[in-house]
């Protein structure tokens, strides 16, 4: 009897001990570890924070993940060679502590930090880097990120110089090339080489992966996944950043991603205190939370205009061969610059900002808004709304009005067209309704056709069976390079006229040349001049009629420390390693 009781007692103690041992303590900094010191970061250890996500992540594989939620979770588990600081929008050394660029701008030699370990304790060195890039650029893997590493149709050459030095040779100079490294996670060769060689890399690191089989260089590592409900990540004890007092980051013991659903459901759960951080609120929800501020202790952040641009797009594609006579007939109107200028003059951008964005937004007349301080062309005019000017423009282009006030073109046809937009985006639907009313003042009959998202994409990119569309682009990065495919005449996002084999107009030719030039210009001032001219061309020729951009709105519980949302994605978790939990000492059952 006594022995049994003793055994029971022992096992109980062990169990209890195991429960307490479940918290992962940061490994104290070791000699030989070259850690990155964040000089202005301080906080306290312990606690956990919950974040709501719109849906479940689909995978934890950084090479194949395409959806935003997966990327947000993966981003906390993985580390990059060079990072873009979302707050300053500039690059910073990360796993690469320094780099040298050759004079022709084509060769980057990166020095890796020594003594860094993955979250499973195994060392990181140049072999992992070379392996990772090999996977990204392997055609058989079909990673969407492969296209980032192909410049001019040729891949970047990656070679190992020594155990902590890697050389990258670009096929030609590429402006701000170091920005490419942000988001390219470094993979552990010791875990992934085998599945890669065996050809089933895409199935690795699915959501069912065991915590012991996945390792990264990010501030957190996988702890558990409960299907349909949440993913929990815990502190990576070997993370390579320390704060101002040489304490190893991250401060949090755990970060919990809850799969909550729509933005409204997220707001509800945030209000109920089940989540601590909510990013990308709509203005109405932001105001709702502002009203609740007295009742719930929270911090609100309005970070100013985002980098995305919403626009009205007219179908200027070549429709030869497709049986789209109705659309083709209307293109005579759409192709007329004065027609588009008239529409731009008639659109009530102020109402869009006040009614759609709840006054927390900015009107746009070009593709770069005030949120992008480094690249905006301030000289672009912002003409006020004027129905008279719109009517003058139409008149001078040969349009007229009948007795009922309806607009007729030079051939006497009624001007009537439809605007498609995604039915799931309530803001763009609202814009469409406002524009429909605006254009009615010009006598135009506009129909709004809400389409399910993929159906809309199919029409814009494939079938070209549409008249006009309201869409949004941008927001990925402040740098102009990611926009290449929109403005280059052969670009895949050159939405108004896809599939051009040569520039359709003179201004598009000039725009293409400008974009190509800025891509290889390494000096910021010269690039800015080129891009300024590009913005001017775009604003004058109106391939898109720019409407507006929302502000980035976020909120967090008061107890979240170091909450610094940014205008670039991921808006609130980009500094997850610096977040900490404020509050009474009892909450933080940790080191300090």
């Amino acid at each position, binding site marked *: 009897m006594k022995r049994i009781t003793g055994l029971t007692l022992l096992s109980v103690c062990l169990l209890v001990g195991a429960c307490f041992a479940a918290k992962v303590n940061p490994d104290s900094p070791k000699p030989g570890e070259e850690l990155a010191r964040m000089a202005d970061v301080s906080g306290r250890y312990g606690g*956990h924070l*919950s974040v709501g996500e719109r*849906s479940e992540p*689909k*995978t934890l*594989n950084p090479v*194949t993940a*395409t*959806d935003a939620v997966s990327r947000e979770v993966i981003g906390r588990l993985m580390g990059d060679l060079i990072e873009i600081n979302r707050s300053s929008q500039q690059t910073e050394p990360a796993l690469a502590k320094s780099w040298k660029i050759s004079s022709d701008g084509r060769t980057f030699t990166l020095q890796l930090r020594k003594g860094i370990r993955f979250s499973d304790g195994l060392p990181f060195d140049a072999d992992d880097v070379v392996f990772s890039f090999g996977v990204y650029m392997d*055609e058989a893997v*079909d*990673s*969407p990120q*492969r*296209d*980032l590493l*192909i410049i001019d149709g040729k891949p970047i050459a990656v070679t190992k110089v020594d155990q902590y030095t890697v050389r990258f040779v670009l096929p030609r100079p590429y402006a701000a090339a170091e920005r490419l490294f942000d988001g390219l996670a470094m993979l552990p060769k010791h875990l992934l080489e085998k599945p890669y060689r065996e050809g089933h890399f*895409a*199935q690795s690191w*699915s*959501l*069912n992966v065991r915590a012991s089989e996945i390792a990264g260089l990010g501030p957190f590592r996988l702890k558990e996944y*409960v*299907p*349909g*409900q*949440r993913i*929990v990540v815990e502190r990576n004890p070997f993370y390579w950043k320390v704060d101002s007092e040489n304490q190893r980051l991250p401060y949090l013991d755990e970060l*919990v991603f*809850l*799969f*909550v*659903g729509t933005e409204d*459901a997220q707001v*509800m*759960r945030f*209000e*109920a205190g*089940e989540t601590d951080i909510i990013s990308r609120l709509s203005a109405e929800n932001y105001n709702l939370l502002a009203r609740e501020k007295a009742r719930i202790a929270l911090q609100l952040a309005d970070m100013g205009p985002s980098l995305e641009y919403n626009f009205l797009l007219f179908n200027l594609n070549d429709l030869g061969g497709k049986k789209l006579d109705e659309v083709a007939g209307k293109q005579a109107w759409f192709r007329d610059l004065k027609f588009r200028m008239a529409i731009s003059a008639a659109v009530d951008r102020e109402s869009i900002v006040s009614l759609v964005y709840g006054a927390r937004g900015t009107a746009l007349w070009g593709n770069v808004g005030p949120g992008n301080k480094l690249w905006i062309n301030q000289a672009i005019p912002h003409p006020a709304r004027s129905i008279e000017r719109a009517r003058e423009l139409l008149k001078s282009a040969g349009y007229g009005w009948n007795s009922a006030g309806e607009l007729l073109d030079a051939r006497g046809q009624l001007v009537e067209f439809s605007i498609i937009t995604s039915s*799931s985006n309530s803001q763009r639907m609202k814009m469409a309704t406002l524009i429909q009313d605006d254009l009615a003042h010009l006598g135009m009959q506009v129909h709004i056709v809400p389409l*399910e*998202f*993929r*159906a809309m*994409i*199919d*029409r814009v*990119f*494939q*079938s070209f069976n549409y008249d006009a569309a309201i869409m949004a*682009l941008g927001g*990925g990065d402040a740098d102009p390079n*990611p*926009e*290449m*495919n*929109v403005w280059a005449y052969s*670009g*895949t*996002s050159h939405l108004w006229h896809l599939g051009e084999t040569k520039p359709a107009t003179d201004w598009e030719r000039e725009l293409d040349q400008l974009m190509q030039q800025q891509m290889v210009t390494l000096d910021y001032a010269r690039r800015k001049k080129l891009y300024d001219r590009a913005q001017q061309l775009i604003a004058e020729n109106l391939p898109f009629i720019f409407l507006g951009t929302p502000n980035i709105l976020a909120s967090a519980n008061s107890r979240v420390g170091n909450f610094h949302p940014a205008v670039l994605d991921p808006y609130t978790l980009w500094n997850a390693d610096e977040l900490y939990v404020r509050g009474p000492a009892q909450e933080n059952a940790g080191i300090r």
Partner: protein
Amino acid sequence: MSYIARRLARAVLLLIGVSALCFLFTEMAPGTFFDEMRMNPQISPETISALRARYGLNQPLLVRYGRWVKSALHSDLGYSIAYNVPVAPLLWSRAENTLVLTITTLLLTWLISVPLGVWAASRRGGLLDRSVTLLSSFLISVPELVIAIGLLAAVVRWRILPVGGMRSADFEDLSTSGKLQDFLLHLALPAVILVLCETAVIVRHVRASVLEVLDAPYVQAACGFGIKSGRVLFRHVLPVAANPAISLLGFSLAGLLSGSMMVEVVCGWPGLGPLMLEATLSRDLYLVIGGIMFSSLFTLGGGLIADIMLLALDPRIRREAADAQ
């Protein structure tokens, strides 16, 4: 019995029909899973085409259907494009959650509706009857979505219940009774919404069918003979009234997997509903088809069970089936 055999054969044929029509419908809805990537200016169309080819999305409809049928016969329902895992286990893990919700709801609904409906009918025109009719009319008139959102808003406003998910974040740290309590609290909101909507419908049907039988001449005769009303009710009225009720039960069983979709999405219950909605909107082809086949199995199975029950319980049907042979 050959009646059952015939119904089984018809069910199998229907399953095949559903699968074929599914493929046809998915072909009609434009767009594929990878279209979302077109909006990202940094991904080339070659990558998108290569991905489409890898998942066999660019092959003709008949080829895809043929391959799917072949693998389905080996109970391999294909891969989910989004999750990159086999469809069947993914579906099953979510279906479990849905069934927990719907079976609980089913039991509660019938436990409430049947006595309430019978009672209301037996005291026709009385206070209980009138209030039951009024309330059920009201509940039926309001769309399920409006009830769901309304209750959700109330619950959040006054912090009555936790919202979303099946368990709290610190579930593992709770005691067993704590875990049970936590689970029940999370189950409460979606279950209440569903029970409200379904009870309203079932109560009316139960009441209507009992009323119908109560008006029958033989019941009047039995009462006239002085047989006690309780005995009349249980021995003569209910067995007859059971027929339409069993058909209804069949419908309820059929809807076990599909009926709760909207409530699950609104309340954040991690069942089949949110998974299927997202899969449909993102064109995760094999997940959608697998899910529909799963639900169809339940639908057809529910109808089959109802038919068998009817056969066993209602001698009229047995005679009709025998006559038909």
